[in-house]
């Protein structure tokens, strides 16, 4: 039972790292980016290629996956996304679906449609006993890593100069420009970091949830849930939503295998009906 909870928390942490970039672009900047998963997938495939073709060790792949996807994100933001911030939601939806389709087809073409296997090193595959509960070392690593990243993000958003500039830019881009904030640069850095984290998440998650070209579609709704159910006022809401989703999903699969997916969909719809601003949003501002 506690093992399920533990696995759920690890899964939730992973979902948060995968989705936290979206929490900023969608939650704060109000850009409906359905293609967020494509960046996560890119991170996953970077890892696969580095490990299989170049023999780079798994742990060394993680920062590389982050950097590669962040660069990809920065490029996409400058050339494509930046033009669409002020467009209608329908345009943003169409555009990002287009990106999803292109990425699926491109990865299919380059890497084939089969499931990719990411071999994690032997010392991460074991289990250890903590307080009488058997937990996987790899999941422990994920919780630790994601936990640190989460704290770092919270701190960066809340207490750094960059964080306050970002909040100002999101609030009122024109006013922020007037204050001398380079809004374009802030957005591109934010987008890059968000994409990079998604890429890192993609690399970490390949072993747990698998990796194939349909990844961006399969997890699209999960990412959206984390953001909309979590609410858009900060990162705490999405984090709680991700943990809730992770635990529910894992528990659902173990305990009621026939109903797992249904529970998530129904709960999501119910929450959106009752709290359109998100479960953890603060009041009606």
């Amino acid at each position, binding site marked *: 039972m506690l093992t399920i909870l533990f696995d759920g928390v690890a899964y939730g942490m992973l979902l948060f790292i995968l989705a936290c970039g979206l929490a900023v672009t969608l939650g704060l900047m109000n850009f409906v980016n359905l293609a967020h998963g494509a960046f996560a997938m890119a991170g996953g495939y970077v890892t696969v290629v580095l490990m299989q073709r170049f023999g780079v060790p798994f742990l060394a792949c993680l920062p590389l996956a982050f950097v590669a996807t962040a660069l990809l994100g920065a490029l996409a933001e400058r050339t494509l996304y930046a033009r669409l911030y002020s467009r209608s939601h329908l345009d943003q939806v169409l555009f990002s679906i287009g990106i999803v389709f292109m990425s699926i087809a491109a990865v*299919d073409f380059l890497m084939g449609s089969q499931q990719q296997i990411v071999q994690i090193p032997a010392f991460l595959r074991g289990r250890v006993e903590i307080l009488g509960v058997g937990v996987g070392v790899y999941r422990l690593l994920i919780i630790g890593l994601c936990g640190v990243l989460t704290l770092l993000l919270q701190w960066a958003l809340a207490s750094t100069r960059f964080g306050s500039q970002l909040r100002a830019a999101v609030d009122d881009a024109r006013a922020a420009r007037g204050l001398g904030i380079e809004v374009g640069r802030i957005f591109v850095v934010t987008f890059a970091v968000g994409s990079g984290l998604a890429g890192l998440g993609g690399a970490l998650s390949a072993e747990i949830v698998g990796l194939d070209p349909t990844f961006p579609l399969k997890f699209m709704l999960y990412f959206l849930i984390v953001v909309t159910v979590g609410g858009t006022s900060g990162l705490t809401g999405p984090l709680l939503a991700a943990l809730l989703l992770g635990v529910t999903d894992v528990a659902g699969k173990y305990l009621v295998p026939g109903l797992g997916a*249904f529970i998530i969909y129904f709960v999501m719809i119910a929450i959106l009906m009752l709290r359109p601003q998100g479960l953890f949003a603060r009041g009606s501002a």
Partner: protein
Amino acid sequence: MSDASTLNGAAAPSGTPSGTPASTAPRDFLIGKSRWKPAEFAFWAVAVGALFALPDRHLLLNEIAILGLFTLSLDLILGFAGIVSLGHAAFLGIGAYAAGLLTKHGVSEPLTGLLAAGALAGAVGFLSSFLILRGTDLTRLMVTLGVALIFHELANRLDWITGGADGLLGVAPGPIAGLFEFDIFGTTAYAYSLAVLFVLFLLARRIVHSPFGLSLRALKDNRLRAGSLGIASARRIVAVYTLAAVYAGIAGALLTQTTQFVSLEILDFARSADALLVLVIGGTGYLYGGLVGAVAFTLLKDGLSAITPAYWLFWMGLFLVVLVLVGRDRMVERVRGLLARAVGRRA
């Protein structure tokens, strides 16, 4: 393609009637909007003509007619009521499975199947419409997507009824109204789908040009003002969402009956996304967008699949990205400008 663009051209002035002389009587102005235009007659004449002129393309034409009906139903909610849906395939799938199961279990008369499929999809549409009344575009996207996923999962789990991933095999519909047998060339199928499409199109055309249709356009335009004129927006949205679900359900039933097969694929996200793409190719909010888009989309898909069969998805994605970057309105204008120039040169 060419009559598609003239249709676009004919529909454009209704959005910008600045050229209308001030002396036009108001009555004539309002009634004139619902009057049949030459390009419309031409469109349907071509559609019927294809039945005789292109005997070896009936299977493809049938596919176009059904996709056209499905997209028309999305246009009713997106183009006229402004509701963005990412899960319209749910109703297509419900209709498709309803017709398939009905045929398989003894009720093989197709028209009966259509009615039953439409009714079932409509009932589900009615119930789920209450979920999209509140919230923003984003919550509606998620809720429609969620509903579609629930039905996808349902069809997957109930594999002893639906056949699961293998699909429902051996769907053999009887002759339509006991008179017209389906043939392997798709001739009956195309005639049947086209007839159903035409009847439902006429109904939709009447509805959008009615006071009810006007109130939908008003709701899409400015819901605050609509409310302050006394319009109960919730009821209108429930009504049009239900209607769109019925249409989509009937499109699904046509698909099952004319292809004699239905599988999980019909509930895929790609189906909902296809419909959105088809609709934006053809243009929203003038009813022909779905039909014109279906022609263009199917021909495009047919052509591109012939070159690179596996990577059709890539071209579709690229098309969407370019379409949005160039601007949907501007794209239509440019194509129209090019055609106008081409026609001008010929003259």
